């Protein structure tokens, strides 16, 4: 059985993906710097005004505290987006035919991409959190709450990375693969990540309240501000697991049935 090599082959493929991240900084630095730029942009350009809408007279300080959890979700979405490109790049090249004719644990190729992207996500999150704290993010949470928030962000990362893997397999070209996951970085804007959903027009508000990014943002926000999480926490976890399972099944089907380049 090739599954006895599941861990070993996945680690081999992870090593390959980590080398790719190092050799192709143009792609791997993007998900680190993009959220930092958005964080600075929203805090220093829009933050003074938006903060007053969050708490009367709260200004920029209030907005940093509101925005940071949202930017963390945006970071996770941005890093996941890259996976589709690297998966599609693999699928359109001869190397995938080689892997498929070897007696290895078949999902190892995809596992390598998922683990590599997860690694990139964690680095990006670390950088974004450091910058947020540096510019005045004031978290009232202790270590346990930070760990719980990070745990949820990792669950979301795994879910979105699998979505991105599936899109990368679905795309016929690398160009398409770089466009398809675009909605992943749009969804945070249509949630409670950047502004409270109560400020949105009715239809948009309905969408924002019922899409996964809102309960996840709210859960991370409440965890980090030391507030009561409530039922949003369960909803957030259920969303992450459901997306992961759906995307994984789709990705596996595409991987096994897609003809190689």
């Amino acid at each position: 059985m090739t599954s006895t090599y599941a861990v070993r082959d996945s680690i081999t493929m992870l090593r390959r993906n980590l080398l790719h991240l190092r050799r192709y900084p143009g792609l791997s630095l993007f998900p680190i710097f993009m959220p930092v730029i958005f964080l600075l942009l929203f805090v220093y350009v829009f933050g003074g005004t938006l903060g007053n809408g969050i708490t009367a007279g709260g200004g920029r300080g209030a907005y940093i505290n509101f925005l940071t959890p949202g930017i963390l979700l945006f970071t996770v979405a941005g890093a996941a987006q890259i996976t589709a490109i690297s998966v599609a790049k693999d699928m359109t090249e001869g190397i995938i035919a080689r892997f498929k004719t070897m007696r290895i644990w078949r999902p190892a190729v995809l596992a390598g991409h998922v683990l590599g992207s997860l690694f990139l996500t964690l680095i990006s999150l670390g950088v974004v959190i450091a910058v947020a704290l540096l510019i005045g993010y004031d978290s009232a949470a202790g270590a346990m709450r930070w760990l719980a928030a990070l745990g949820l962000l990792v669950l979301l990362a795994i879910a979105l990375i699998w979505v991105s893997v599936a899109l990368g397999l679905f795309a016929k070209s690398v160009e398409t693969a770089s466009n398809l996951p675009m909605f992943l970085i749009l969804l945070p804007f249509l949630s409670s990540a950047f502004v409270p959903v109560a400020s949105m027009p009715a239809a948009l508000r309905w969408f924002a309240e019922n899409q996964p990014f809102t309960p996840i943002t709210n859960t991370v926000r409440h965890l980090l501000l030391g507030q009561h999480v409530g039922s949003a926490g369960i909803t957030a976890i259920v969303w992450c697991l459901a997306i992961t399972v759906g995307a994984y099944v789709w990705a596996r089907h595409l991987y096994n049935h897609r003809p190689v380049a």
Partner: protein
Amino acid sequence: MSDSYSPAITAVDVRKSFGDNVVLDGLDLSVERGSVFALLGPNGAGKTTMVRILATLLEPDHGEIRVAGHDVTREPDAVRAVIGVTGQFSAVDDLLTGRENLTLMADLHHLATPEAQRRIGDLLERFELVDAADRMTVTYSGGMRRRLDLAMTLIGSPQIIFLDEPTTGLDPRSRRTMWEIVRSLADEGITVFLTTQYLEEADRLADRVAILDRGHLVAQGSAQELKERIPGGRIDLRFADATTQLAAAGALDIPVPDGDVLTLQIPTDGNVATLRRVLRDLDEAAVDVDGLAIHTPDLDDVFLTLTGRPDGSGEPGSEEAS
């Protein structure tokens, strides 16, 4: 039933269509262990499709196929354990160095580190890649990529190797190097299944050649046997005037062609004895020959003869539709 005397590959009545496009239409073949087998055909004949089926990349619509005694659809992992595949488009990782590519393969074959290091060192040396070993493969020439590709295939010590058009797109020197490598693999007892568009390549390398045309095998045999069936080989003689032409035709006992041409064509299977006889006959008759050319059969002749039409393929080296 993988006893060492059974054939390396057997395929019976293999069929494969993509939609309405019938690519393989009842193919039978058998490849002896330790032999070099060439599947010869023009672009679009179905060569790559056949290799993909044998290499477990594609399931046939119909057919009984065994590789090293294992059924390709029911026991693909057992097949994968003993084969190596080098495709038409090089399957190397561009962002890794040559050495890293080989290490990746060694890790996927679960080799112990000292064993892996030894084998990587040997292969880099054998394929003349020592100097380039620590450069990213994106900087490699076509010939170097193809050599690395084959070295990656050999890391796992496969019993059977599939080479899909191993020399398409290579310059003549790299092609010659690749031929030497293929011969050395056969000398080591590895079964080689290769596809090619070049009769010369099949002739040089293969113990047995099968000619594929539009999903059918139109002929099978040793290169020699096939060439004997192809009347494309001939000696062309050119003369200064009609008198010498007539004298030569008399000496050789062949008809003079109609029209104004001052040439004679003597069909031959390319052996030296025929040539010697022709020259001796001309010498004895004291006929002056202006020019002599030997035309050896090529793929065009093969196709013309076996299918009654030219191969109708596109540019040589252009990619094959799968």
